[in-house]
């Protein structure tokens, strides 16, 4: 039922499905012309139709005037405005592009990538030729969009300090945790040496390395995890450090629909979708201009309340900016048996190829969760990625949410690959 409404909304907005033929033509055009920072958006996606937005910048959309932006909001977002007091502060559209090195790599590797549907063999790789840069400018289908956001520009390494807050519509803030998370791309690097890959990870076909550990509260402090994602559609592998045991243990990580750290996020919800493209059936529903909190203006701060309205019911609403964005509407249905979501609807920003918004349906097809995130402009877009602003996983059925806000973020700081070792995990755990 919900899915039908969503599809209908897309159709009513005058955006048809991306026809195969049109996509092919666009791909040819993308290969003919050089992609630059200035034309990035229209060359890799499409220009937003700003005429559909009838309210000026500065307008605050509430349940009183939400009809003025009808058709520009996903159904779940509209529900948040109408029922859960979400307010949207409208700002002007501002284009976003990746680093110049990433753009160059996109040009250099244009046309090399090929992907295919692996069907039921979702543990077998369904791609070849994906190198640095965006693999599929002007994507033809949902699968290509999926590979685009899985290979989108995030810088070559990043270091974050962030707060996690559990909130309930009934009782407000339940608890908070404070975490540190470092990541490093190990292949298809564009910005910093070694490029394009780090040799010591090559033999294991590692895509990226992560090291994360809890800083607060005391009973969680020191817990850490070191894990590696693969170029192949297999589960994460890695180690955890358990302070109560003072040991590093090898761990099979929950990537089959487990929640992360007892939050409303599944592991794969982090960043919109963190799983493998092969695990889902992807369908490009359409492309349209919609309101999303990209360029959200969310500050890096330890004052969570300045980003999330923790004081006012329902205690999870972000206090950020929204703008009209070019969006690919993507539908994903899981191939993995017993996956908790029956279907996911993702709004993928057509410039940044980030999953800014996701609706997840339960087994009955009812709206269960909304995943929302929004970064802000990079201080130096030529060399560095956008700054993460906030993330929210909202369980509408339980009226419960988990929010993530950031205190600090650095990128492309030349993290030492030896940071991502078991020995270092143990040292950092005390």
């Amino acid at each position, binding site marked *: 039922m919900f899915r039908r409404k969503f599809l209908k909304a897309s159709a009513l907005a005058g955006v048809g499905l991306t026809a195969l033929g049109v996509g092919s033509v666009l791909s040819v055009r993308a290969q003919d012309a050089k992609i*630059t920072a200035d034309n990035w958006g229209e060359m890799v996606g499409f220009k937003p139709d700003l005429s559909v937005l009838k309210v000026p910048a500065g307008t605050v959309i509430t349940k009183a005037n939400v009809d003025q932006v009808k058709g520009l909001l996903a159904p779940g977002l509209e529900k948040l405005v109408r029922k859960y007091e979400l307010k949207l502060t409208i700002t002007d559209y501002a284009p976003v592009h990746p680093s110049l090195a990433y753009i160059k790599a996109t040009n250099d590797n244009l046309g090399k990538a090929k992907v295919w549907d692996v069907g039921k063999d979702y543990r077998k790789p369904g791609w070849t030729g994906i190198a640095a840069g965006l693999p599929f400018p002007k994507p033809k289908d949902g699968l290509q969009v999926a590979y685009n956001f899985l290979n989108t520009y995030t810088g070559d390494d990043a270091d974050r300090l962030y707060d996690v807050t559990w909130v309930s519509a009934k009782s407000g803030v*339940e608890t908070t945790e404070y975490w540190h998370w470092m990541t490093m791309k190990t292949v298809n690097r564009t910005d910093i040496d070694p490029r394009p890959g780090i040799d010591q990870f090559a033999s294991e076909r*590692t895509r990226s390395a992560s090291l994360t550990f809890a800083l607060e509260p005391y009973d969680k402090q020191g817990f850490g995890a070191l894990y590696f994602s693969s170029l192949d559609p297999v589960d994460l592998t890695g180690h955890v450090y358990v302070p109560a045991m003072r*040991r590093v243990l090898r761990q099979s990580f929950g990537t089959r629909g487990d929640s992360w750290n007892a939050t409303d996020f599944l592991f794969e919800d982090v960043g919109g979708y963190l799983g493998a493209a092969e695990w889902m059936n992807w369908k490009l529903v359409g492309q349209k201009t919609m309101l999303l909190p990209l360029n959200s203006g969310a500050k890096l701060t330890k004052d969570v309340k300045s980003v999330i309205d923790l004081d006012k019911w329902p205690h999870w609403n972000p206090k950020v900016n929204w703008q009209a964005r070019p969006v690919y509407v993507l539908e994903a249905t899981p191939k993995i048996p017993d996956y908790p979501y029956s279907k996911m609807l993702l709004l993928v920003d057509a410039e940044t190829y980030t999953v800014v918004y996701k609706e997840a349906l339960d087994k009955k097809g009812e709206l269960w969760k909304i995943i929302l995130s929004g970064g802000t402009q990079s201080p130096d877009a030529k060399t560095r990625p956008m700054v993460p602003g906030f993330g929210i996983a909202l369980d509408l059925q339980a009226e419960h949410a988990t929010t993530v806000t950031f205190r600090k973020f650095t990128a492309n700081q030349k993290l030492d690959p030896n940071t991502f070792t078991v020995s270092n995990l143990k040292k950092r755990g*005390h």
Partner: protein
Amino acid sequence: MEESESAPSDDGSSYEDDSDHDDSDGDDGPPDESSFTVNAMMKLQGGLFAPLASSGFKPHENRAFIESGASFQGPPCDPIVTPGKPCSPMDHAMDPGTPSISRATLQIEAHWDFTRKLSLHTIIRGARMGSTAADERAQVPTLLPRRAGETDEDLSQRRRDYARNWVKKNYYDRFELREFYLDYLPLDWLTFRVGRQQLAWGETGQFRMLDVVNPIDSSWRFGALESFEDQRIPLWMWLTTIDVNKLSGALELLWIPGIDRARDMVSVPLSNFGAWGAPYSNQPGTYQILYKDFKYPGGELNGKYMRGGFRWKADAGDHASYSLVYFYTHMQSPVLQRANYLQRVTSDGVPIPDNYDSNYAQSAEFSFPRQHIVGGSFEYVLDDPFGMTLRFEGAFEPNRTYSQRTDTSGLGQIDGISYEPRTKPVVNYALVIQRPTMIRFLNPTQNFLLVAQFMHTAVTDLDRVRDSDLVQVVGYNDWRINKNSYTLVFFATTNYMRGIITPRLTAVYMPSPYYKDSGFVSLDVGFRIGPHYRLNVTVTDFVGKNPYRDLGFFRDRDEVHGSLTVLF
């Protein structure tokens, strides 16, 4: 827009919000900057002994009888008055409702990152415990002799009072610098950790095969129900870690100088305390020990007290890890070397030459012999559809030392008995299967972590006849060494309401082909109450047909336990 590649600045790009960032408290700066953090927690624990299902909700009786021969059961006796033959306990129960623990703990943990290469970590812990009735039955090192004209009742009460006070003084009220160590990283691949610390080797959860560096103090509660982190006795150590990234591993070199307080160099003997201690033996020796003289291996800088070892731990591909361990140490539990009879004296107090009372040992000498431990571990992750981690951990002890029984063994001499504890090669290994598993009809959103462990201990050259005088625990004379011992563990946990409720189920079973099986089942439910409070309620049911073997020791100690932790 001009299109040119520009490299990021050398210091990386920091997108920190300057208006909001305040490094003065250090809690929001990156870890590679100077920072100082302090955390603390206060924990209140209380528990009661309560007979549960395995006991039919009926208490066991605490009984002892004068015994003569295998079949004769005489009148009741008090093992506190007569901690030796002929008084033999039949059981050692505590009355239902008797406190099992009352403990308050305050722990403060501080960490200074002076620079990226230098940091200091410290943990200070203070604990106060209330005495329990069971402490009166602790088998403390000193046995008060009977005073002239003292009745059995008076003697028993005096010994009970003494034991209770001794336990409280020595183990229950603490203020200790648990950890205090400096981390220094002179090179990217070299780290020194110097100071009082814990070091855990090995990969299995419930067993301590390679986790043998720190001794254990489980004086306040049954060890399996408390974390090893809280039970380990930190020692002063020098740990050198050499990262060998080309081999995806690290070599740890350990030196323990042995300068800790002597008694802290070994695990606290189970007989030294009450509620969770070892009961009076049902097969006591022929003499009563007036003073247990533990020759603790430590307390000064001396080669004979030093310990050392190494561990190499590395990844073997992206699915496997392994470790190799060697450690040269001392036995962690005591071995009886000699009992010195009480010399008789004249009425004037003058010792009578060559005249000894064989009913009493003036002292019994216990040692902690040297021991080698060598072993390794292996972990492997099986991908979907198995989605599990397999672990193996094994240890070989070529010279574990066992005591002889105290009632019939030893070389009798006029002034005492000299024992001949013997070393045996011992092999331990454990297999562990760990799997996060979605059981959606029980929990639709969060997986269950399921862990199954199997452990086997084999005393390889044990001869049932020749070695029939060797016992597992000194003083428990009918607890002979088993050639093979097995332990099975099952553990499951999940959480509900996004971590607000966390149940944990632990079951341990020790099958015994020679004697009687034993084990326990423990259900703990944790509640997260806001950011600062944690409440846990635990119910533990011990089973064991033999009250003097394995976990049967605790069959009368079914417990209902609660704890409240406040985090600062």
